[in-house]
């Protein structure tokens, strides 16, 4: 059996859905943030896997090249940067929220409710 793009994508589907389910089910803000990290990692996996199987452009002299061969890698790099920023701000919000409500339960954050 040869490992194919489909396997990586299927894996990342499963990982993403675990992360999403965790985000939806757990009421601990910390675990919600971790679930978000899980989802982002799943997405990164699809980028890198798809980059590995990217179709190449055949140029005039017959050599197959890609204009920018690491599109997926670059995108993943930026996703990681955003994830790091998100973690920093998110955890800061958790601290502020805890200071305000003395809890980390998500259902305590309902002040916008009409």
């Amino acid at each position, binding site marked *: 059996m040869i490992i194919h793009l489909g396997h990586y994508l299927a894996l990342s589907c499963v990982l993403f859905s675990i992360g*999403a389910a965790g*985000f*939806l*089910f757990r*009421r601990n803000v910390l675990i919600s943030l971790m679930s978000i990290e899980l989802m982002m990692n799943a997405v990164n996996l699809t980028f890198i896997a798809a980059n590995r199987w990217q179709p190449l452009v055949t140029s005039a002299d017959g050599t197959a090249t890609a204009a920018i061969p690491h599109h997926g890698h670059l995108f993943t790099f930026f996703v990681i940067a955003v994830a790091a920023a998100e973690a920093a701000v998110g955890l800061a919000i958790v601290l502020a929220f805890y200071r305000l409500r003395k809890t980390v339960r*998500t*259902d305590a*954050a*309902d002040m*916008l*409710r*009409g």
Partner: protein
Amino acid sequence: MKLNHIDFGQLLAAAPDHFNVLGWIVLLPLLGAIINGIWGRRIGRQGVYIAAISAVGMSFLLSILAFAALLKAGNHAAAAALAEGHHHHPLASLSYRAWDWFIAPLGPSAVEMIPVRYVVDPLSGVMLLVVTGVGTLIHVYSAGYMSHDPGYARFFAYLNLFIFAMLNLILGDSLVTMFLGWEGVGLASYLLIGFWYTNNDYATAGRKAFIVNRIGDAGLILGMTILAWKGGSYQFETLRQHLTEDTFINALHERTGLGHFLVDAIPGLSSSASLGTFVGDIDFSWGGAACLLLFIGCCGKSAQFPLYVWLPDAMAGPTPVSALIHAATMVTAGIYLLCRLSFLYTHFSTVLSIIALVGAFTALFAATIAVTQVELKKVLAYSTVSQLGFMFMGCGVGAFSAGFFHVFTHAFFKACLFLGAGAVMHACGDRQDIRQLGGLKKYLPKITAAMGMATLAIIGTPFTSGFFSKDEILFRALSNPFAPTVGKIVYATGLAAATLTAFYMTRMMIIAFDGEGPRYHDPNKVAHAHGHDDHGHGHGDPNALPSEHGVDMTLMIVPVIILAVLALVTGFLGLPHFVFHHEGILPTFLEPAVADVLQTRSAEVVAHVHSMEGVSMVGGVLSWIIGTGAAIWVYKLQKGEPADKLAKSVPGLYRLVFDKWRVDELYDATILRLTRGAAIFAAGFDRYAIDGLVNLTGTVTVGLGRMVKPIQTGAIQVYGAFVAVGTLGLVIWATLMPAVSIAYRPGAAGPAILEASGGPGYTYRWAFYDPDPRPEANLLDQRCPVARATEALTRAAAAPGAEAPTATTQRSESITTPRCVAVDATNAFGRHVLARTLVLPQGADQPAANPPGR
């Protein structure tokens, strides 16, 4: 002249549509209007005056240039025609195509590019000179007349706007551009009638003019569209070409549905000999309907019965407006349109007879009203309606150039009369009731002389312009070749109207200008010590005696005198045929542009027509003598006693005529009441039915909001649950439902690219095979049952030399012969979900793209 060395005609023939002088002629008044409309208050009266007059004046100078170029081009064309052995007069025209405007549908299956294109030919050339020439004179006059008005800039902006619209109307080469100008002059007319909008009556008069014109315009639009549909074009020149082709002539003569109904319902209608000889050949054709509907539009614009009611009220506007718009130019647009389309109208003699009868009736009807009116401008207004009737008589008996000749002469004498009346009002403290005036010849000698000259013209004094143009119309009516009875009726009516014209104009002149002195002037009330030496008085002291001194009066008198001289002499451009055995200059010039029923008649008929001219002229001169003589006897010799006696002996009739036959009251009682009733009903319908519906939607929305309110819990994870369920649904839909499209893009050199695309997880099987001999099997792009595609795939596999079905998601194929392709799609769960067959025609353009299959 240097110009003579240039072969002008050849130059212009080499570059058609590039005669951009026409563009400037049209554009300059618009620029004037924009400048005065936007910066009018800032640039001061002097600036306004310079901007407005230079715009129109330059336009006039360029018009002269354009006219000279047209004459050159005409000579060139005539010489060219003669060289080829033709003796007819070719139609010369110069045009300027500004830009392509839009593509207009002509009917169910044809379209036409409508350009913004201006054309000057003999007809529009003459009209162009009249409009810009008279327009310039009236601008000069207005500078004096409006000198004390606070709305000075606004007035000139409107006036320039009017000139711009009018030039669009006369120079536009298609019904569409003409319509643009047609509505533009209507707008300018509305704005200027209601110029003093703080006076409610004046504002109402403006609205009345606008609304009555809308009624006519409805007919105009319908006529235009029918003409475009059956005649195959909106453009005059193309229409003229089409009228020489049998297909379009037959289409125009096709009987309408209503015509079929009438002919079937009324036995003997189509074959009625007496009716046929009365009004000409009856055909209930589309072309006739178009002509009649266009004539309704002309009735509105040119104030013919029953749509004339707005014109007398339009005298609410400043007097220069009455002279320019409501006497000399705009109101003649209807006759101008008939002349433009004369090549069409000559095909529909019934419509022509209707036009002639309407014109004759209007001429007489308005003349009777004018006899009793006591206000200068009202007399002149009804006189205008009456004269417009004469012009329609001319068109209606098939002598379009005669009608247009009257437009031409009328422009001068009526503008002169109106301007003179305005000058009188300006000098006499805005009085225009002739019973209060009198003896003005002593105080306003120049104006009296000028108005006298114009009066001589309008009453048809021999050798004045009015005499020649009216005579031309009357004799053609008498000798009408296609409907003799109608012709005689029209002739008799015309004579009566001419008699009345002579009577009421002489009456007006005698009462207002003859006698001791102004009756409003009471010497005991006025301090004579001052008030005479300051210029522009009359506005200063309302009881002062009128005088011709001052800058204002000079500015006003000069145009009046120029117009008066023109009124006397322009008739010599159309000298009668029977004296000189040659057509006049103007009719000869117009001949290629304006059709005439005589053009298709035999030489005997033409000779017979011309033999009637002398007889007709005797009638014309007699009517002049009787009308003028009666007026002099009644008002000069008997000091108006017989008229008073007559009025007292039949007080009912007198009141009726004095009240303008109470037509306005009739409209009030019938049409306006009906409209008001309909409006009340509509208001109720709006309040209860429409508003009810609107409120219902509100109630439903609020109810729905109440229903879904509990879902908004504020808990983020519940919201997330909704998202998750939606995602699941989306995934299932994308996975289980096929989403496949097949695109066939014909490449430039023949190879086609076939693509099937859809959600991931699909497997496609393609098979190409030669077309099935059964015709029903090769339908183009069929969605078919799965079984059928399977069968097609099997058949493709079984066909000799065919390739086996292949399973790919994409396929590019060079197709050189017509082939069929069968596709079936299998989803990730192994179910056949979609099947299509497609026949690829060789090298054909279709199908460009197919909608996604489901």
